[in-house]
């Protein structure tokens, strides 16, 4: 009922309150819908997001009317998309927190403007963190050329570079991670040339050599302890194999993996036999917001890889963690037994308010970005119920995800646009833990932009502010510093 009223009011507003200039008047209203790209119909957005420019999938002349209960403004389609004025958009969103706006697309047919069925966009009262960071890299396999870690201001279309590999002889940089979305406390790995891990804290840069005799590899997938004093990592022996004819082009798998925790101050790593078992592949650690639990994924170890690639099923597990002395509990709890359902879980991430754990579920294995069936699931940590984030999922891959600092927004990687190039999507998680229809990262002229973008967005992470680190200093540290050798406790 609310929906119909809003729709009626919106149409009236659109018809009656037209501003001057190139505004049009609707001659006829239809119930037909028209397809747009990106699909922003009925999405839920924060009030501080950049304009959701979009294109109509059609060849006619179009006009867009954006309205709320009191006002409206029109946008003429130019260069194949609606370039929504940023100041009008921001005002409209500010005025409509916790409300909805209506978007009406009109098409010129002869001399008449025909309006398609409007759609609404819900605006939440909860803001979104102002930035996300991600790596831009072609969706390749082994070879690479240029890549970099970038950050994007979500209230505008500005993207800037945090670090680019051209500064360090085109090496590989990856696995950027922030402590509680803090832009001043972050880390990332550098591989191949100038290998090491950089930890950056309030401008101070440390290079670490993280391979020890007691671990099977340098440190890999990170997760910061909320205190900032520890980082949990996996250590992995990772390989990849190529399918001969499969929607999932490749399979990336571990032949061995463990979980360790790194003490940032003492430069020491430690683990537990429960996290380093030869009979299990432990990976994807993540701390709980209170820092007293360490969640991770664990699968029964399988030999004969990759032949038995589809037999590897990871469960979601938890172990106590004692931050005062960096020790672990003496038993592991299984939070979600994916194997029992003949499934596999990866990338557990807990909301900062500690209520929900989101993970990716798929048929087997752990490197879910290459699994078309990978979807986002949630565990309510209060009642332990597990459910799919249905509204957020698609027929294609949904994979890596991270929480905003207020626990209401999730950014995740999806390949739904073309099946190969990963794009970031945002979904609102309401108080009941339900996901709302997601929206793709806004761009000016998004159809052109995403169509011509030949790189994927990798590891999208929310940050509470802009990362302001001197990239040349980072490069200098990588290239010239010997690095601190991490020891095993």
């Amino acid at each position, binding site marked *: 009922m609310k929906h119909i009223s809003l729709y009626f009011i919106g149409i009236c507003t659109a018809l009656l309150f037209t501003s001057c200039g190139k505004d049009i008047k609707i001659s006829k209203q239809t119930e037909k819908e028209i397809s747009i790209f990106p699909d922003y119909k009925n999405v839920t957005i924060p009030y501080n997001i950049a304009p959701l420019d979009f294109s109509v999938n059609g060849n006619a002349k179009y006009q867009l009317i954006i309205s709320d209960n009191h006002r409206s403004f029109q946008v003429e389609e130019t260069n194949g998309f609606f370039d929504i004025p940023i100041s009008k958009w921001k005002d409209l969103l500010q005025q409509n927190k916790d409300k909805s706006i209506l978007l009406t697309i009109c098409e010129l047919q002869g001399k008449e403007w025909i309006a398609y069925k409007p759609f609404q966009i819900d605006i939440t009262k909860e803001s979104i963190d102002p930035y996300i960071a991600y790596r831009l890299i072609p969706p390749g*396999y082994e*070879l690479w050329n240029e890549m970099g870690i970038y950050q994007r201001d979500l209230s505008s279309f500005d993207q800037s570079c945090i670090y680019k590999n051209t500064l360090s002889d085109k090496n590989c940089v990856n696995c950027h991670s922030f402590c509680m979305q803090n832009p001043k406390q972050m880390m990332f790995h550098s591989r191949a040339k100038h290998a090491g891990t950089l930890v950056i804290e309030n401008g101070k840069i440390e290079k670490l050599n993280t391979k020890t005799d007691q671990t099977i590899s340098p440190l890999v997938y990170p997760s910061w302890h909320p205190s900032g004093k520890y980082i949990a990592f996996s250590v992995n022996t990772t390989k990849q*194999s*190529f399918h001969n*004819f499969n929607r999932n*082009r490749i399979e990336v798998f571990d032949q061995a993996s463990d979980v360790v925790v790194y003490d940032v101050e003492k430069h020491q790593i430690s683990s537990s036999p429960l996290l380093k078992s030869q009979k299990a592949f432990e990976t994807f650690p993540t701390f709980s917001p209170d820092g007293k639990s360490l969640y991770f994924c664990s699968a029964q170890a399988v030999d004969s890889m990759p032949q038995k690639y589809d037999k590897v099923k990871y469960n979601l597990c938890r172990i106590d963690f004692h931050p005062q002395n960096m020790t672990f509990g003496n038993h592991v709890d299984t939070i979600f037994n994916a194997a029992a359902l003949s499934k596999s879980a990866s990338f557990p991430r807990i909301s900062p308010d500690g209520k929900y754990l989101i993970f990716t579920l798929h048929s087997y294995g752990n490197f879910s970005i290459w699994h078309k069936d990978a979807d986002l699931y949630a565990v309510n940590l209060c009642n332990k119920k597990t459910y799919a984030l249905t509204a957020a999922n698609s027929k294609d891959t949904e994979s890596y995800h991270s929480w905003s600092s207020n626990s209401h927004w999730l950014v995740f990687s999806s390949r739904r646009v073309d099946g190969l190039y990963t794009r970031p999507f945002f979904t609102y998680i309401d108080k009941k833990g339900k996901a709302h229809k997601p929206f793709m990262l806004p761009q000016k002229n998004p159809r052109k932009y995403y169509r011509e973008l030949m790189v994927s967005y990798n590891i999208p992470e929310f940050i509470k502010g802009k990362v302001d680190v001197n990239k040349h200093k980072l490069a200098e540290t990588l290239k010239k510093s010997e690095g601190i050798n991490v020891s095993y406790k």
Partner: protein
Amino acid sequence: MIICLFYKKNNIFVVKSVFMKIARNYLDFLIGIAFLCLLEYFLQTKLAYLFFYREQEQLFLWNSDIILNQLKHIGGFSTLVGQFFVQFFVVPKLGAIITTIVLGLTSLLLWLTIKKSPHADFAFPLSFLPATFQVILLADVNYHYDGVIALLMVSLFLFIYKQFESSKSISQILWGSGLTMILFFLTGPAAILFCLCLFCLDFINIWEKGIILFIACFLGYISVLTTSMNDFRFAFLPDAYYESLLTPDKIYLISWFSLPVSLLISHLSGYTQKWKKFIKISMEIILIFFLFYNTIDGFAAHQDEKFYQLIKLEYLEANEQWDEIIQTAEESSHNYLYCNYQNLALAHKGELMKHLFDYSQNGPLSLVVENNKSKEVTQLLSQIYFTIGNIAAAQNMAFESNAGAIGKDNPEMMKLLIQTNLILGAYPVAEKYIHLLEQSWKYRQWAGEQRKFLYNDHAIESDSLLGMKRRDLPQKADFIYLDGFIADTEQTIQVNPKERCAMEYVEAYLLLSKDMRGIKYIVEKYGGTPALTSLPSIMQEAVISYAEKDPDYCTKHGVTEETFERYRDYKQKYIECRNFGRNPADALHAEYGNSYWYYLMFKQ
């Protein structure tokens, strides 16, 4: 009469002077034209395939956003103009013609600047010196074409500077600094070279020129601190126009300084006004000879002949010139990569099994090299895998090779990615790549023609190439590369026996590996089936090799009487050689060198 004689004598003198001046001007013009013609000929003869290679290492897109974005970066203009020209190198001879024009303009502008120095006539050949060094540098694919454009821009800016030069100190600083800043933004470190050249133009206003140079150095310093420039050498040296991961040879620095040196010598020619004409002309001739020697010798020292042959084969393969590939590979010193191209060409002609041992072969690597993950090898492997119907491997190799392209995309690999994605039914991705190629000059038509296959399984299945390759897709899920080349290719044979190249490659691989068990397996399993309706003669020879004592088996599996006869003859001649102490490898080569028996017995 004396007055008339004097007047007449003076007129003759004037006429003679005018005549000499005209002759001098036309001589320069003629020398210039001769230089350009020689240059074009040299470039076309020696660098033709390098031009094609450069074109394949980039994809210039007629896309205003991309172009504007490129122009925002320091040196973006020279990169953009370089890429713009390089896109036309795909047309035969255009690479040499365009480069000749660019280098010709560079030399002309330099000469027009040099001319302003008094008595600089004899230094005319020096205006060609920087251009000749560019010819040497262009032999190295790691030298980007931006460098050629940057040098042209320096010559242009020197000419402009000289045209409007002011003697006033402030004006000179402003004028020179303005040009320097613009040039720095357009070309990067070439602006430093410009400033160095100012010192060599003349020896006046040294302090002012020092200030201009300081401004250029300051710009270079700031650019390193504020952009993604890796090192100061990219802001100050010609390294900016070279592959960033490599350190260029000292010839690059020499070429860099050849421009100011030319100017300096020209300026110093002012001190030669008392030299005799004879000495000046001799100097000029020496300079011309030096240019020729320097170019030819320098070029020979820097050209990688093996690599040149390889990229020639890449070009011939892309243009399906199979006969030329076979001839070129045969003429060159043998290496696995050449053999791979040769065998690929034979396969395309349907002659792999007929003529395999007519050419030098050296094990299975002659057929399919190991993947060393280099751009050239992955490109070659992508074509081989596509030919034999291993579409997943072809796509994988094409993607990897494309990732390694210097200018971000390789058009031939993009085409293969479009084809493989169409075959695999990944239509949105195929459309993305089609859209990309449609923005290029050369490939837009081909890309547009692929649109009819999007979301149209019927069109793909009806197409002779795409349809055949789609039928090659395996039905049994498995991993490629895991169990070896034979296992992977056999999957194609099983699912599509009509994929002739798959079977021929399997046969050839087994023969070259001397894998008799594998040959036996293939013969017994596929002999007489649509995949192997009749046994090629070299396969028959292989069958005899492992089943000599069972002629019924041989006959049953397709060995003809003619082959038996030939084997008996071979065997007898071999025994005769042994008995008479002759080297059988030498003695039998002429008649049996192209047989499998010969390969089996004598090839290590």
